[in-house]
């Protein structure tokens, strides 16, 4: 569902289904917002207003939660979502150089999205695969042992659209 084609009819139906799935329980609020985030790749304003009405919670609480947690974003994210792990293990293995390279190549800062909405760059605190630090995930695909050179290679590969399986062998085999 590309973000551009949100029209009111199906936003109401879509939100209704998601809220129904969790029986509008307050404990499920974060999961509801996650489903919406997955569905639209961001949280549209009127979706949040609908959620507030259907769960009869104040809009202020929904807005607070939507802006508090890092996995939600009020602005549409890029088609390819790049997550650089900045956990301690990856940091110690020079994750900073990888981040600098991404920022240089895509000419955006952490947390931003490129103008053509192709790439959005974000850091995350530990994806749980510290053995492969520094680790980057692009659209749920893991790329381990990243170095400056590999970063530009992957970006070109994704730009040209050939998502071929990427060898993650240790360079120093």
């Amino acid at each position: 569902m590309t973000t551009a084609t949100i029209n009111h009819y199906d936003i109401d139906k879509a939100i209704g289904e998601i809220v129904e799935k969790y029986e509008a329980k307050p404990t499920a609020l974060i999961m509801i917002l996650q489903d919406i985030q997955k569905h639209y790749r961001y949280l549209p304003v009127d979706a949040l207003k609908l959620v507030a009405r259907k769960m009869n919670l104040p809009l202020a609480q929904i807005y607070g939660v939507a802006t508090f947690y890092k996995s939600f974003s009020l602005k549409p994210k890029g088609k390819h979502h790049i997550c650089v792990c900045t956990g301690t293990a990856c940091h110690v293995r020079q994750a900073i150089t990888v981040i600098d390279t991404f920022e240089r190549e895509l000419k955006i800062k952490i947390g931003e999205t490129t103008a053509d909405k192709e790439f959005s760059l974000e850091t995350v605190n530990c994806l749980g695969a510290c053995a492969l630090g520094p680790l980057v995930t692009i659209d749920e695909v893991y790329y381990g042992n990243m170095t400056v050179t590999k970063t530009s290679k992957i970006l070109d590969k994704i730009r040209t659209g050939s998502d071929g399986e990427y060898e993650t062998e240790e360079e120093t085999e």
Partner: protein
Amino acid sequence: MIPTKILSSKDLDSLRSHLLRQRQQNQTIISVCGGTGCLACGCEAVLGSLRTELKHSGLENKVEIKVTGCPGPCEWGPLMTIYPEKIFYIKVAPRDVPLIVDQTIKGGKVVKKLLYKDPITKQTAIHEDEVPFFKKQMRLLIGNNNRIDPTSIHDYMILGGYQSVAKALGTMSPEQIIDEVKRAGLRGRGGGGFPTGKKWATCRKAPGEPKYVICNADEGDPGAFMDRSLLEGNPHSVIEGMIIGAYAIGSPQGFVYVRNEYPLAAKNIAIAINAAKDYGLLGKNIMGTGFSFDIEVSRGGGAFVCGESTALMASLEGKTGEPRAKYIHTVESGLWEKPSNLNNVETWANVPIIIEKGAGWFSSIGTKGSKGTKVFALTGKVNNTGLVEVPMGITLREILYDIGGGVRGKRKFKAVQTGGPSGGTLIVETSEPKVHASLVAHGDIHEDEEIVSLLDLPVDFDELTKAGSMMGSGGMIVMDEDSCMVDIAKYFLNFLQEESCGKCLPCREGIRTMLGILTRISEGKGEMRDLPLLEELSQVIIDTSLCQLGGSAPNPVLSTIRYFRQEYLAHIRDKRCPAGICKALVSHAIDESCIGCHACVKPCPTGAVVGNVKELHYIVQDKCIQCGACYQICKYDSIKRVKRGDGDTLQARAKELWQPRAKTQAAAVA
């Protein structure tokens, strides 16, 4: 008759024996690790080619493939163990699979290439327990990971799963269970080390219905993934622990709060809960004892602060994860002001073992103060990265060198950091001359006094806290001399500034101020009065912060100043970064050991590296943006990070000393 609902321990045994009969004894099983770590290494591809290979050789119904959780050594992913011979293969690539199928499966021979080879003794180990990494471990919790497919409850039952529930609910009273946990000496594995038995007892006594039982699977510490592998690999052990805990406390409703960055863990725990419900082990009238208990999975939203109990409960209530003062403990008034008992994933996983093997057996493991085993996530600059489950009392040196295989590459060990950002303290080799000088300068010890090296401290809640360090949740990040302590302190503060909820002033403003000072130091603009200022700020933040995130935020700064004072002085006085990390103080230069392999020219983004093949290369200083690409690429370690501005002097000296080397000499160095 195969019972579809477990109503008593008799049903459990009959189901278990039925399952055993169903599984022929010597049927070969190939178990491939499907944890997040191996997933990242591409175990999907290995499984794919394994399935196609077996179909070609017509073995797919004779050989069973089991996708299991993470057994531990993620460094060697993708892992494969072949039963019943228990052959242990590491780093299996999709192209090795045909070799394995016809040699090991058909021929019963071992593929030597894929065995573990000890880097020092060059000895190969065929079976899992021969590998030194596993030898020193006592794997009670994650030991079964490579024998259980997390999505099937039967594997867990075959290994004696849910016996403890049958025993606890069937024969023991809630008070007996609490007493058993107390006698076992189980302490919270979340980092605080609060006696679990005492916590359950207070929660049971607290007035207010209904009581809640919560499993904290938020594991926000970067560099820690023990809870992940437990939830992904063996979710039923956690569920079993929660059922027993809920029965002991008298709670009808449980929650598992899973971290947002663990999608696989959330999926597996949800499947496990439904499977348990189908068998009547969860829901109404469990095993006919009249006790009904249900578990609900709730996902986090990406906030480290939600690891703190009151923030987690606020998040569960659908609010922003803001902690509240713990003057009234959460066991008396937690979720919706009802008594709520919150424990870490690992704590819950220990409970079935205590009930099954008894408190006496459990308290025999570990030291006087801390009982049982602890799972550590050994990561960073260590050879064998992965999960390490060791009995309490083992020394850090054994973990680091015997199990971890020592520091990675030829670098020297500098420090290991335990407890993640909310622990934040360093464990160092105090016998190190620089560290010793720093301690003396810091006024902790006299000139000639020798103190026990922290590495030799036994892993124990009380010992570590006494020595000013902390057990923490289990993250253990090894750092070598390549890590700059000022940068590490800055990293932790930056992490905490991002994750602080911003409610209370000392944490929100304090971390921002201290980070500002450290950034100035790392850019060479530090002043001498910054160190006492940092210490003053730290004291106030620790005193007045509302929750432990703020309360423990200054620890990284304090312990880096305490052990590596002269590194700070190097940054402030000499404007130099010894480890070469702080970009503003470093310039890259090539010394005479360069053999002209020309590898570093192409990756340089600004074309600062100049030189032709087989000749000495050099870096144009003003073009170089210190991105580190050449430093990572160079195999001959000839790119040096020197003090900003000294690059040209080094390269000038290199020009005289350099003479062309014969080709053979270059090959020897590789």
